[in-house]
């Protein structure tokens, strides 16, 4: 027996120009905020942008965007909802506000199903909000999704960086493109993370200062894009020259 869904995934993603997987070895480093804000900033630059929340057991991009159980449209598969200028997909459309406890195989099945039936169509950037760690989501991405480029997020903490280093080395060993490592929630001027990133031979994308106003802006996209956090990320995007 053959699972037919994997056969169609790269066909579905063919009209997508670039796929950016926002990842980290650790939780709590701000991946979802970075992924959502990067997607919004790219959309503000008039690109066609998708945001896909792959953190199925702990989704949070819907809270950041201030949308509640927004439903994809059924049209020969699923067409993502359009919110705040983004094509948006989250499992929250199907699990609502209930807990969704998934073991690894179930997680993979849900990921494969949604990649197999979602029609992103012509899209400049598909931003993926990855769950933390080096487990099913990362392994499935490496197995099933060609062309994904990883944007890795760390904090200034050595605890976060050590997990990020392992993720980065895994990806590099498999020749998977890594855009670089972003230092998020930076509390003080210090270049130790920058030095560690350089030491492992990856681009240091910059330090995004900790911004207490971000919490106030959750659920309010216009306010979020006015924060120092978003302005700093916008500078990172300009330097990255993704566009």
């Amino acid at each position, binding site marked *: *027996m*053959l*699972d*037919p*869904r*994997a*056969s*169609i995934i790269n*066909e579905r993603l063919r009209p997508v120009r670039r796929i950016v997987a926002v990842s980290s070895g650790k939780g709590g480093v701000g991946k979802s905020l970075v992924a959502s804000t990067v997607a919004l900033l790219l959309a503000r630059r008039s690109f066609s942008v998708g945001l896909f929340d792959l953190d*199925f057991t702990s989704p949070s991009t819907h809270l950041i965007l201030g949308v509640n159980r927004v439903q994809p*449209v*059924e*049209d*020969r*598969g*699923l067409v993502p909802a359009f919110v705040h200028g983004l094509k948006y997909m989250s*499992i929250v*459309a*199907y*699990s*609502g506000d*209930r*807990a*969704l*406890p*998934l*073991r690894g195989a*179930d*997680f993979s*099945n*849900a990921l494969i*199903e*949604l990649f*197999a*039936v979602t*029609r992103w169509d012509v899209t400049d950037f598909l931003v993926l909000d990855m769950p933390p760690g080096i487990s099913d989501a990362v392994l499935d991405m490496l197995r099933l999704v060609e062309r994904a480029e990883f944007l890795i997020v760390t904090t200034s903490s050595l605890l976060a960086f050590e997990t990020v280093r392992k993720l980065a080395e895994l990806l590099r060993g498999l020749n998977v493109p890594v855009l670089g490592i972003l230092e998020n929630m930076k509390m003080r001027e210090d270049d130790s993370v920058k030095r560690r990133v350089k030491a492992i031979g990856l681009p240091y994308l910059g330090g995004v200062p900790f911004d207490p106003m971000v919490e106030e802006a959750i659920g309010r996209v216009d306010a979020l894009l006015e924060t120092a956090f978003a302005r700093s990320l916008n500078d990172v995007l300009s330097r990255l020259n993704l566009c």
Partner: protein
Amino acid sequence: MVGNFKMHEWALAEAVLAAASQVVEREGLKGVREVRIRVGELQQVELELFEFALSQLKTDIFKDAKFVVETQRARLKCRVCGYEWVFRKNELDKDSAEAVHFVPEAVHAYIECPKCGSPDFEVVEGRGVWLESIIGVK
């Protein structure tokens, strides 16, 4: 409902044909006599729509192929107490059933083991769509 192109079954049929085409290419088949597909009841695929989509999407290599679609009961097993049961559609209300149709794993948000109440159960069989076999002409 047949002729309704706004259907999720269309995407599943596309996936089956993409996978079947890859098998045809890999095996160097000149023709296909039969494609056997297994559809698990958990996903509640509308078989009429699914078969219609297959008929509309099939390429020339499948023009003489018979598509045999078999359903499979969804069997669930609790990982905590070991109880096994068969999924019944009426365990879910309309909205939950629709969610499970699109993403069968959403079932973990809506049902629990009837014996011990745990949401930690396994879908032993009958989850979704599988390409079971292809009989081809070399």
